[in-house]
């Protein structure tokens, strides 16, 4: 267990390979739920929560079920099923035991099942060997899920802040709405591209 790996993973998944702006994962909620800061924050928190849990569960499934029984080719099916039922389970659990949290996060949970960032982080945890030169271990996988969720939330909050201002801006009629959102996202992505010059190993 190397502590420096955790720092490398955090910096990489928050800034250098930001899930939305660097890897293009989770564009649908990034465009769909970034109209208001409140809902962007709610969505971001729900994504951090689900990504951390999904990383935990899928890593255990890969290590203790798929690999010992040589079922790696069933990975896509197994992971998406696990994530879908996990999200459903969290939703039911929250509704019953934490009604106040459900009020703020609940509406976003069904959207997360088909968020490619969640399945993406689960697959990357298994596949990504370039970043630290070896496969992630359990703690690194969970940490990667958590920090990727934070990176997603940062991107979402930045976008929501800009979009709240854009409401008041004088945008050409043809670019109103989604087009100007994409163009602003492009400018944020340029800023994030600056991080890719950082050498962290």
């Amino acid at each position: 267990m190397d502590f420096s790996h955790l720092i490398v993973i955090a910096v990489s998944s928050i800034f250098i390979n930001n899930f939305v702006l660097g890897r293009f994962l989770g564009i649908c909620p990034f465009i769909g739920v970034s109209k208001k800061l409140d809902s962007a924050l709610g969505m971001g928190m729900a994504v951090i929560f689900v990504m951390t849990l999904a990383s935990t569960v899928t890593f255990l499934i890969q290590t203790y079920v798929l690999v010992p029984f040589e079922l790696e080719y069933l990975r896509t099916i197994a992971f998406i099923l696990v994530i879908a039922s996990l999200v459903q389970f969290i939703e039911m659990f929250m509704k019953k035991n934490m009604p106040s949290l459900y009020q703020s996060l609940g509406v976003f949970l069904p959207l997360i099942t088909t968020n490619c960032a969640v399945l993406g982080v689960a697959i990357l945890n298994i596949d990504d060997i370039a970043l630290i030169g070896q496969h992630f271990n359990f703690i690194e996988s969970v940490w990667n899920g958590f920090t990727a969720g934070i990176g997603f939330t940062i991107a979402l909050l930045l976008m929501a802040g800009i979009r709240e201002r854009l409401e008041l801006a004088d945008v050409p009629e043809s670019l109103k709405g989604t087009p100007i959102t994409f163009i602003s996202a492009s400018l944020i992505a340029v800023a994030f591209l600056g991080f890719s010059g950082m050498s962290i190993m």
Partner: protein
Amino acid sequence: MNKLQNFTKGFFKENPVLILALGLCPALAVTTSIENGLGMGMATTAVLIGSSTIISMLKKFIPGNIRIPIFIIIIATFVTAIDLTLQAFIPSLSESLGLFIPLIVVNCIILGRAEAFASKKSVLNSMIDALGMGIGFTIALVLISAVREFAGTGALYGYPLFQLMGIEGFKGSIMMILPPGGFLTMGLILGFMQWNKIRKAKNTGGK
């Protein structure tokens, strides 16, 4: 709606990416060259046709309450089949699309067509709809990747156009291949579609 309209509606009128804004992640991520865009479009079309056909055949047996998980299993099966096929026969494409092949399973176009069309209509109509939507998705991907590849490298489908015409020294803007170019291209294409819509509305309003 007759079969021909059903087939062609996905091309432009209800284009899944450009009009309905579905499946944006692959549309931005893999469109760095026409080859990748075309490969992704065809892989998605194959999954879409397979899953729509099977879901339409099984629509009477799928209980309404748990239809979404069942749809996802069927889609994931086809995605796995395509993933393994590509790894075996076109390893270079499989490598450059990478993560985004397993992620076809969460492409909202496929689940969207299953929910909105295949689970209600006949098998033949579902197949036609799936093929049309798949071609529409491919058109959108090829369009975006053509813009990005040309602006980024000066080539189209791997052919360096400027050098073939004898113009030396053209250097593409590498930014268009990198993530910002994807967002920018998408924004400008959507802006063009909106401009066109406004222009048409004005023309018909003036008459």
